[in-house]
């Protein structure tokens, strides 16, 4: 535990000072700020940020994460030659990567809200889901980044994998769902589709925000099935839990690979 904290301390120093994280924070800040200046009130800004959170945050997390772990490879070996356990070293490395990215997101998006948004009760729901989604997606995709970079010694493979996984989750997955829906139109598909949605972190993040903005539509048609599942607090907890699981699984895998790996 102490090893983890010690590693984390210096990793934080290092990652926080990295230019990429600075640029990421600044980009999120400027974008949110501009949305406020042009779009106006809070709920609409949250809506405009939806795609940023669902696409950009995972992309940055997985690509920056993978590159970072590769660039730290030699130093990681030096650390491994110190009298420390691999498990705690791994935890320190992961947190040292994920926390600055999560912080960058919080700061970059949160600050403009603190400056511009009026404190209305109606904004809390959408805003909390925006942050919950953004943070969980950061943790999920940095965990994926760790796994890829540790699994593949070849950087091109790891980075390619990162982009593929992002593309898969962000775009292709929904295309496949749509294809399945049109192919099996005569079957009741609500439940299978629901299950498929639970497997993709980006879809889960999207559903969290759908529940804030599109309840009226979800109540229509068979959509009510989705609303009935996700709209309850149980459903919401399920979504958050599923996201937490999706961060944990690649993380545990990465940790296992890391502990057994020959460097």
């Amino acid at each position, binding site marked *: 535990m102490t090893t983890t904290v010690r590693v984390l301390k*210096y990793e934080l120093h290092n990652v926080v*000072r990295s230019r990429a994280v600075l640029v990421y924070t600044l980009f999120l800040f400027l974008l949110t700020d501009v949305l406020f200046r042009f779009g106006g009130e809070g709920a609409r800004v949250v809506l405009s940020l939806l795609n940023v959170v669902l696409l950009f945050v995972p992309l940055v997390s997985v690509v920056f994460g993978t590159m970072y772990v590769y*660039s730290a490879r030699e130093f990681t070996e030096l650390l491994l030659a*110190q009298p420390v356990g691999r498990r705690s070293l791994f935890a320190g490395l992961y947190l040292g990567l994920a926390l600055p990215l999560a912080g960058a997101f919080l700061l970059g998006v949160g600050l403009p809200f603190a400056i511009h948004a009026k404190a209305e009760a109606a904004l809390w729901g959408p805003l909390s889901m925006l942050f919950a989604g953004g943070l969980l997606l950061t943790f999920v995709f940095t965990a994926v980044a760790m796994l890829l970079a540790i699994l593949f010694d070849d950087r091109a493979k790891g980075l390619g994998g990162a982009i593929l996984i992002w593309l898969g989750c962000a775009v292709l997955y929904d295309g496949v769902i749509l294809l399945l829906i049109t192919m099996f139109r005569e079957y009741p598909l609500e439940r299978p589709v629901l299950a498929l949605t639970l497997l993709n972190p980006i879809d889960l993040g999207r559903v969290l925000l759908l529940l804030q903005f599109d309840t009226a539509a979800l109540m229509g048609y068979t959509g009510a099935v989705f609303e009935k599942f996700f709209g309850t607090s149980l459903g919401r907890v399920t979504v958050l839990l599923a996201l937490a699981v999706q961060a944990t699984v690649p993380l545990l895998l990465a940790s296992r690979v890391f502990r057994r790996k020959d460097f």
Partner: protein
Amino acid sequence: MTEPAVAAPAVEFRALRKRFGRLTALDGVDIRLGAGRVTALVGPNGAGKSTLIKCLLGLVRPDEGSIVLAGATLDGGFEYRRGLGYMPQAPRFPDNLTGREVVDMLRDLRGHAAATDGELLDWFGESGALDRPVRVLSGGTRQKLNAAIAFLFRPALLILDEPTAGLDPVASGILKDKIRRVRDAGATVVLSSHLIAELEELAEDLVFLVEGKIRYAGPLAGLKARTGETGLERAMAALLTRGGA
């Protein structure tokens, strides 16, 4: 300058085997490195030198065999590395940390209470290199930091991978002096190098690896005697062409 004495450990590799997929990196390595001596690992590229070093460091886990350090078999624990100093071949430190922060981090990480050896660190720190981010340092300066870190915690066992690579002749000389002094103080040193002159200058024993197997292990002088060559380079070439003798 004299070094405070340390208790030198002997290092034993017993029937060590390691395969990476289809490639056999170590094929039954069975040697004992003398305590308080400088042993050079030599051999062509891909002979298994790095793998052997990494096994000793715990970076690579052997498939078979064991390593005995100062009489104790390594069992996957990490405490033994407290007595280890390691100088990797191509060091990269976190870009945005200063040299001082890297050193502090390692100090923190070891929870090192005992006195440290700041000699090389002071040498590195001349001209303020300690407080600049690592990414702006030249390769040679980085290698100095690398050396300073390896010696910092007064290790009884030093593992040096191409220690003078990238150093100018003056720096190289200072490092070699330092190596000899810690050896004299009782430390065991394992080094790998391609520089014949460096080997002849530093090494007492020599382990010659080819394709994961030991071709020769013993005193430097013994190799020349066995091959009948006078130069070390020729002696090694002879060993390589003639096969196991």
